[in-house]
């Protein structure tokens, strides 16, 4: 606790983020892509941890039970009970393994390996490249333990929340919902605990499937179904990268199991890898996979549409856990982004690409979020932006910063989504913040709005918040870097922080303050509360235009009757979860303040004892920004942009809303600025561009191919060939008059001909 006495400013800006390197102090101030000697602790195989399989089997049992309930059409609340209980079991086991293995891990750096069961394994020779092994096995190092800790705890909380939130579906998809959520947690745990890349791929696609099922949960809504398909297909693009990366890794290192792989990388040495495309391609293919799962770069557009899913799903899958799988993959595969693994020619470009993808996504996500009126979509874009920050963290060279931000983000973004869900739940699915207001004063919503305030503060990275502590590590690392491009990323990141502060409070000021205003949404019967929130996004559904009907189909069913509407304040379970998450969000910053062990804080030790240890620091200790002391300057700058952002939001959306509205109107009327407002509102038309450049041409090409196949190849070519015997038959047809005698005569004639031929050969001496 003595750490709390240290100067707050230094703490807030990530002092302590850097420390002596545990494996070799030689490169404390490591060069960007050149990290010196690579060295990894070998995993300790300990089968006495076999009980860890219950972490997977408990949610799997819930999958089976919920599935049975869904198939047998049993109505009831039991599925929620199974799910929460099984997640709680998993959480307890996660904490147990942390407590049991953590000390060993932190002292010896050795990950825990627990083989469970054979899966894909075969040998065809005795050489090092003549076998392939990808089994079910667990591999627990720092980052996997960190991930299972927050995944299981958050999953338990969110499942508890969902048990109330989904209450109106008890007679419909309740069991199906919890089936998918349980399957999701199982897959997510497989993803982070597997001891090999193929197992990771299993989890990777498994969470993708669950995401697909849950985005399309309201299956009668064409928009939801289109969104789910879009998510799956875009994720598949990323999966393709992962699959190819796995092949490349195997052909280069002869193994896909982490333990052997890291040893192989370490022993391959820097000198031998120059100019090898097959190694240089690995980090880029992995990045493609990350782009798919974490909605980065060119593949970000599926995430906003994923908001068609029920809000707890958005919180759990599309904010806190699944989308961070990409960050996990980057951290896990961090050794590939070094000169030592792939050679000096490509290591720096690979790392810079990661940084720029993250940085650009963070910026673009933030700019789009400013133009949304659907508060859930604002949070969706903020997630894209935050994920961009994390990816940028790894790109600028601090896995610690990225992972720390994953951890804090998981708490406050889950909190934000759940408060958004509580509002939607209470307001019959109203998602447009222009139609709501003053909710802070509506009875029953105070806890919700206060929690949302906390979430917005954290999203805006208010000074001293957990989010700021983690995000500033990334910015500090970027701004103090030796590489000029990385410094540029830092400046752009700083600007993004300001924009983030603005749009976060734009939502909160509009929703919480001002005169009370409640226009209920389309779901007055509280049946399907999330149905219509895709309003701003409908029509983005890709090539087929099935999603257009969402609104029309819906508005027919429900009358918008504002007069008889009573908001439905959140109940005990929802409020409990919100408060717990709020406390969690606050406490997530504690690792920075609490005592450090050997110079590392709690989160940092996880990173330090994982395959990402080479990126476990957070910038040089006495770095300089703009020629001044790094920590102080960054604190001033970061605080400045955040305060500026919040102040702007205050002016436009709380203090003088009329001004804000007028500003927007005049922007829309000014030809030069119109594109800015419209573009931001429509996600810079990325979907439309994809549709025009890829979707439509491909669709037309497929139509042409189908036509060629059916009518040209089959209809003309083969039909012509097929007619040939028919034409020949016409020549001889007159011989066949229908009487038996005629046939017999033909036959006899034929025999006579053959006979004559034989005789002729005989006579001419041919058969001698």
């Amino acid at each position, binding site marked *: 606790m003595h750490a709390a006495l240290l100067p707050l400013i230094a703490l807030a800006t990530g002092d302590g983020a850097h420390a002596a390197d545990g494996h070799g102090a030689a490169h404390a101030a490591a060069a960007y892509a050149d990290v010196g000697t690579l060295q990894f602790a070998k995993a300790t195989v300990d089968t006495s941890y076999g009980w860890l399989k219950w972490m997977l089997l408990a949610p799997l049992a819930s999958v089976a039970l919920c599935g049975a309930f869904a198939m047998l059409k049993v109505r009831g609340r039991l599925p929620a009970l199974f799910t929460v209980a099984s997640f709680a079991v998993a959480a307890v086991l996660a904490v147990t393994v942390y407590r049991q293995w953590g000390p060993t891990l932190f002292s010896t750096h050795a990950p825990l390996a627990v083989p469970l069961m054979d899966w894909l394994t075969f040998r065809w020779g005795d050489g090092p490249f003549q076998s392939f092994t990808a089994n079910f096995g667990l591999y627990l190092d720092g980052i996997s333990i960190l991930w299972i800790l927050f995944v299981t705890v958050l999953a338990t909380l969110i499942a508890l929340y969902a048990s109330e939130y989904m209450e109106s579906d008890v007679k419909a998809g309740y069991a199906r919902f919890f089936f998918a959520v349980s399957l999701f947690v199982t897959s997510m745990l497989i993803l982070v605990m597997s001891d090999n890349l193929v197992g990771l791929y299993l989890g990777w696609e498994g969470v993708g499937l669950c995401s697909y099922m849950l985005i399309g949960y309201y299956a009668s809504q064409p928009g939801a179904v289109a969104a789910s398909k879009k998510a799956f297909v875009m994720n598949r693009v990323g999966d393709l990268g992962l699959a190819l990366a796995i092949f490349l890794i195997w052909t280069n290192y002869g193994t896909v199991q982490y333990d052997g792989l890291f040893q192989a990388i370490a022993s391959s040495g820097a000198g031998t890898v120059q100019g090898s495309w097959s190694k240089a391609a690995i980090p880029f293919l992995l990045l493609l996979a990350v782009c798919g799962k974490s909605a980065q770069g060119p593949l970000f557009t599926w995430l906003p549409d994923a908001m068609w899913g029920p809000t707890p799903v958005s919180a759990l899958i599309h904010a806190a856990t699944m989308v961070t799988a990409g960050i996990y993959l980057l951290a896990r595969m961090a050794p590939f982004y070094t000169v030592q693994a792939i050679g000096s020619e490509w290591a720096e470009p690979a790392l810079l690409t990661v940084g720029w993808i993250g940085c650009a996504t963070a910026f673009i996500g933030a700019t789009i979020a400013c133009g949304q009126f659907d508060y859930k979509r604002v949070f969706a874009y903020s997630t894209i932006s935050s994920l961009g920050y994390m990816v940028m963290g790894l790109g600028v060279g601090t896995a610690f910063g990225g992972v720390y931000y994953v951890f804090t983000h998981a708490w406050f973004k889950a909190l934000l989504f759940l408060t958004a869900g509580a509002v939607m739940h209470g307001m019959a699915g109203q998602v447009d913040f222009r139609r709501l207001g003053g909710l802070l004063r509506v009875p029953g919503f105070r806890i919700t709005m206060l929690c949302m305030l906390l979430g917005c503060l954290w999203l805006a990275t208010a000074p001293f918040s957990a989010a700021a502590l983690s995000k500033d590590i990334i910015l500090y690392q970027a701004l103090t870097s030796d590489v000029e491009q990385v410094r540029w990323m830092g400046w752009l990141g700083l600007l993004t922080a300001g924009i983030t502060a603005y749009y976060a409070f734009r939502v909160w000021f509009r929703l919480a303050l001002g005169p009370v205003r409640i226009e209920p949404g389309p779901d007055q019967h509280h049946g399907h509360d999330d149905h219509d929130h895709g309003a701003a996004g409908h029509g983005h559904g890709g090539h087929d235009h099935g999603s257009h009907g969402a609104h029309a189909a819906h508005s027919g069913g429900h009358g918008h009757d504002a007069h008889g509407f009573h908001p439905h304040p959140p109940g005990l379970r929802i409020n409990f979860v919100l408060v717990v998450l709020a406390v969690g969000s606050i406490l997530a910053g504690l690792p920075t303040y609490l005592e450090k062990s050997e110079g590392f804080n709690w989160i940092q030790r996880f990173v330090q004892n994982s395959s990402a240890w080479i990126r476990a620091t957070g910038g040089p200790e006495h770095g300089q920004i703009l020629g001044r002391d790094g920590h102080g300057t960054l604190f001033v700058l970061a605080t400045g942009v955040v305060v500026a952002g919040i102040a702007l939001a205050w002016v436009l959306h709380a203090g003088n809303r009329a001004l804000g509205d007028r500003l927007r109107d005049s922007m829309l009327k000014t030809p030069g600025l119109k594109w800015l407002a419209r573009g931001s509102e429509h996600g810079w038309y990325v979907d439309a561009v994809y549709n025009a450049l890829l979707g439509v041409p491909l669709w037309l090409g497929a139509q042409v191919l189908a036509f060629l196949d059916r009518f040209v190849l089959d209809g003309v070519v083969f039909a012509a060939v097929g007619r040939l015997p028919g034409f020949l038959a016409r020549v001889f*047809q007159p011989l*066949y*008059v*229908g*009487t*038996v*005698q005629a046939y*017999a*005569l033909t036959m*006899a004639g034929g025999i006579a001909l053959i006979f004559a031929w034989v005789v002729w050969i005989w006579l001419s001496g041919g058969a001698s």
Partner: protein
Amino acid sequence: MNPVQPLLAAAPLAPAMPANVQLTLALALILFAIGLVGFLTRRNMILMFLSTELMFQAAALAFVAFGRMWMDLSGQLMVIFILTVAAAEAALALGLVVLLYRRKETLSNEAWAELKE
């Protein structure tokens, strides 16, 4: 290399043909010709059937003749086989003829030409 060559090569050379065999074969040929002409010229299904029987017996006779020539019992074996088949076939064919007659009240085969396109 002609793949069919070994098949031809495997066939044994024919020995000189004794006169009685030639006579028997001539009889078989005459029988066959009678049967063939009968089959081709008649329209009555029973007569046509009888003609095919004649052709059968011609073939059987040839078998016996060749069997005698090679001093091989296979020829006679085949004759017994043919007789058995012919008996069975006669039973079937006559039954068919009766059925066909019942359908169209005629024995002429011209009544049945439906396979013609």
